[in-house]
């Protein structure tokens, strides 16, 4: 469904992403792992159009989407959540998700119908799915960190995506929140059939939910394969454990 072909991006001489390759098939959950600074977030920014690559290609459903603007890519069916919480601080939880739904339906040019009456059902359904229904009227800036991370995902769902990118969905969450979030991701994949690409430092989470794993080191893909392949791969060992030959996990 999504193919990345030798994608590269540098910032003033620093090669953040260097010849990255990735292939995600429909319905899969694929994890991107790698040490801090490996270029995972940059890779996601390149896919979603926030950054333009220096070279390489991004293909989505066999269509070249390299260098399109973020809103155009969103309209193609790719939405994402952010690692650093990125919500509309002054709007309520409900309004945050509602704007996403309105935008997907192309209603943001409507100047004279009150928003209040529009897309209520769908917004409420999304909030119910992610478990934020009770907090719908809270101002999102006042939510707990964990709830805001979930709101991130809810907003990404508002775009009714086929392909969901989650940038460290559980970073900074308390244990129970992490468990809830893992359940949510599994549900999204199983019930809604979403294809999910995510990155995460929590190895337990990575190995428990992903079908395949891509490992990035210093901007380059060193391996993409099943959990088993990655677990005992020598290059991965070197990158993570400094060359010892124990298996990860």
């Amino acid at each position, binding site marked *: 469904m999504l193919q990345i072909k030798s994608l590269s991006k540098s910032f003033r001489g620093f090669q953040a992403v260097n010849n990255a390759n990735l292939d995600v098939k429909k319905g899969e959950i694929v994890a991107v792992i790698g040490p801090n600074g490996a270029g995972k977030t940059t890779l996601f920014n390149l896919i*979603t*159009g*926030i950054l333009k690559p220096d070279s390489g290609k991004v293909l989505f459903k066999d269509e070249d989407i390299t260098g399109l*603007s*973020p*809103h155009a890519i*969103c*309209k193609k069916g790719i*939405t*994402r959540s*952010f690692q650093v919480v*990125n*919500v*509309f*601080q*002054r*709007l*309520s939880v409900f*309004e*945050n998700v*509602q*704007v*996403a739904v*309105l*935008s*997907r339906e192309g*209603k*943001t*040019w*409507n*100047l*004279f*119908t*009150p*928003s*209040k009456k*529009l897309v209520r059902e769908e917004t409420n359904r999304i909030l119910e799915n992610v478990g934020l229904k009770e907090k719908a009227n809270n*101002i999102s800036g006042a939510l707990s960190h964990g709830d805001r991370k979930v709101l991130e995902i809810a*907003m*990404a769902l*508002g*775009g009714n995506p086929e392909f969901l990118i989650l940038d460290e969905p559980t970073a900074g969450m308390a244990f129970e929140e992490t468990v809830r979030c893992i359940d949510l991701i599994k549900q999204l994949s199983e019930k809604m059939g979403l294809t999910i690409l995510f990155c995460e430092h929590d190895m337990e989470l990575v190995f428990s939910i992903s079908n395949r794993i891509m490992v990035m080191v210093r901007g380059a893909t060193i391996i993409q394969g099943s959990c088993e392949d990655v677990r005992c791969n020598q290059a991965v060992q070197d990158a993570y454990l400094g060359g010892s030959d124990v298996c990860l996990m």
Partner: protein
Amino acid sequence: MLQGFSGRKDLFWVLAGMIILFILPFILPRFYYYTVSMIMLLGLLATSLNFALGYGGIYQFHHCVFYGVGAYGAAIMLSKTGISPWVGLLVGPLMAAVLSLIMGLICIRLSKLYFGMLQISLGSLVWAIIYRWRGFTGGEDGMHGIPLPGIITSGTGAYYFTFIVCAVSFFVIYMMLKSPFGSALQGIRDNPVRSEMIGVNVKRHQLAALVICGFFAGVAGVLFVVVDNSVFPNMMFWTLSMEVMIMCLLGGWLTFMGPIIGAGLIVVIRTVASGYTEYWSLILGIILMLVIFFLPDGVLGYFVNKFKGRADKQMVKG
């Protein structure tokens, strides 16, 4: 969330205010209702700025250019061409909207402060043209005795015209803020990157917001022509833009009614203080400093937070 204006209770106050404004010319001498019509049209100017500033997060530093162009557009149409005066009055806001589109297209590629700086420069350029083009615009002296349609030449006629146009404009702006466009705009203010990622074309929405706010600034400009029967280049000097921005901050830039209240406060302070000293802006400066220190959300913002806080506490108790 759109604060400070929601629910039946607020609707009651708005209606009560409108009735008072409606009967004002019957009970007060001309000077007072002239001042009130100034407050209304400056309130509209401040509200139009707040559409971009408070709800769109766009740093529209030189908003008065559109006020001035609206006024000059109408004034020139009325005094130098033979077209129907009502059409002439409509030309003002349209010219302001077109200028806003052109300036927006140039400035929108920059963000935040850079947008504001470029906007000040371009705006000052427009001011300089008006100021220097003596033959066409009257230069420094401006234009006086503009021939208005008969029904609005009298004091009360001008007052009711201002009243009706302002009421309609406020209603339209309010509807827009409550519409999906308004929601998207507030999303852009809070987080442009996120807005892009949910599929909102940020630049295009901001540009539309600029055109809308330019249009309503132009409407305010035309109202000035109607009320004062004159135009002069100081209407679009950058200091007035700052004053309008202060109105928004003073009243509360995250509320709908805030800028109107701010306009009221500034006009009253100016009218009262300038009776005693010509350095009335000194007084304004001190008041502004106090507001920033003690009421960072503005006067109305302070009260909204206070009463909302009380309501929340009651809910917890109940």
